[in-house]
């Protein structure tokens, strides 16, 4: 087909932009994989310790920041302790700090109920080291406070001391499964970018993970579950219009292709 691709770019821009300016408000249904993560956090007994990794690349920010914000809001509203750290990306500390700055700690006290340990380079190796013996890689938290001065860290020696691991990742969930879930049989849930969701279902079906969020769709569902609609719920309108446009355009292009082939 010989036509200028830039007209398709204009069409995509319009299909994304118009629903932003004039929202449609189509309802978003909750999927079982999203419900799984929500229930896992909601059903944690009082006093549980949860690991929360807001560990995604900057490129995934439009999908994973709303998702992480919603999960963080739910986590700090629960009577549990939260340990946060980063293993995947150097963007993680800044996003974690941003969420903490914007939402705060709720009723939690830093050091007693919630800590942020910072970033550890190497992905799978620091995850394995942390899971085996937290103190082998962590001596101070992200703010330079020795962990001996953080009361919560006295309760955390290894991965076995956690009741749930929740990680928001652009797609690096396999190292966590290999080094934490499989050896220590810890309950795990992931929020991931859309392209990684179909592969993640493999681990959901096998029971290795209890919840999986599907990119912007998962973020929108989670915002509805915690009754705090945000940017993600609004973004689904743009998704609807743009994806429908692509489907219709591909069908039309195929129809044109076959009609031209028939004429020849």
């Amino acid at each position, binding site marked *: 087909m010989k036509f200028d691709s*830039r007209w398709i*770019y204009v069409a*995509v*821009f319009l299909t*994304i*932009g118009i629903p*932003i*300016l004039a929202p449609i408000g189509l309802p978003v249904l909750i999927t079982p994989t999203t419900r799984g993560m929500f229930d896992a956090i909601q059903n944690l007994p009082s006093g549980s310790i949860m690991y929360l990794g807001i560990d995604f690349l*900057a*490129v995934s*920010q*439009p*999908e994973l920041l709303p998702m992480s914000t919603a999960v963080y809001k739910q986590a700090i509203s629960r009577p549990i302790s939260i340990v946060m750290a980063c293993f995947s990306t*150097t*963007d993680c*500390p*800044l996003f974690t700090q941003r969420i903490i700055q914007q939402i705060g700690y709720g009723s939690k006290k830093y050091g007693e109920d919630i800590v942020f340990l*910072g*970033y*550890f*380079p190497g992905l*799978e*190796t620091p995850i*394995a080291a942390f899971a085996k013996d937290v103190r082998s*890689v962590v*001596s*101070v938290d*992200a703010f*330079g406070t020795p962990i001996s001065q953080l009361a919560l860290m006295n309760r955390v020696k290894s991965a076995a001391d956690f009741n749930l691991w929740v990680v928001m990742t652009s797609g690096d969930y*396999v*190292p966590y*499964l*290999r*080094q934490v*879930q*499989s*050896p220590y049989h810890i309950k795990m849930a992931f929020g991931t*970018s*859309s*392209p990684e*969701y*179909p*592969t993640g279902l*493999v*681990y959901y*079906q*096998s*029971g*290795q993970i209890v919840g999986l969020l*599907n*990119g*912007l*769709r998962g973020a929108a569902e989670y915002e509805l579950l915690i009754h705090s609609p945000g*940017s993600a719920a609004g*973004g689904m309108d*743009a*998704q609807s219009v*743009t*994806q429908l446009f*692509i489907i219709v355009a591909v069908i039309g292009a195929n129809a044109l292709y076959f009609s031209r082939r028939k004429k020849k």
Partner: protein
Amino acid sequence: MNIDATMVGALIAGAATIAIYSYLYEENAVYRLAESLLIGLATGNVVAITWDAVRRAAFVPLVGGQVIWIIPIVLGMIMYLYFLKQYSYLYRIPLAFLVGVGTGLTIRGSVSANLIDQLVGTINADFSNPSNWLMLLGIVASTLYFVFTFGGQGKTGYYSQFHSRFSTLGRWFLMAAFGATFGNVVQGRISSAWGRVGSLLTPPAIYEVPIAIAIFVIYLIYRKRKHT
């Protein structure tokens, strides 16, 4: 209208977005400038955060009296001998640490999480649901598709013929998976575009859009006149 840091930040972000999106028309100097800025900022951020991580992991305990941390620090520094031709072979020693530990972790983790747990998950599926029989067929067929050591298309013999047809079935399942992944990739990419387009269509960045369009039109007119 009060001009504050948030507004200025939104204007900067909007200008950066327009600079990158200008590539959709054609490659240009503004895009290349923005691209160089991005690589510099992103790489600088990686350096800063990684330095902080290494400082907290090794230098803080070293200063605190745990002398043993001098060993990984020295090993890390040996890596930079890579740039000295005479001693570059020494960088393989710390590299061997990375490869040895990393490979060991990956082997043990893959066997349990990616092999045994996957097989157990398949066996434990509820086979009163007919779809799970389809799933089992698909798993066997798509795994067999990647067996190239024996059998396969073009060869004769009952096993080769069976393998060939079963591989075709496996390929169909793989096509379904690629289609499903493509569908989700589309959602992911649209999300990225939506994030920035949304910011562009929100004040104050929205005021930059007509200015950018005007500059662009003026540039096109100037270029056309230059060529005629």
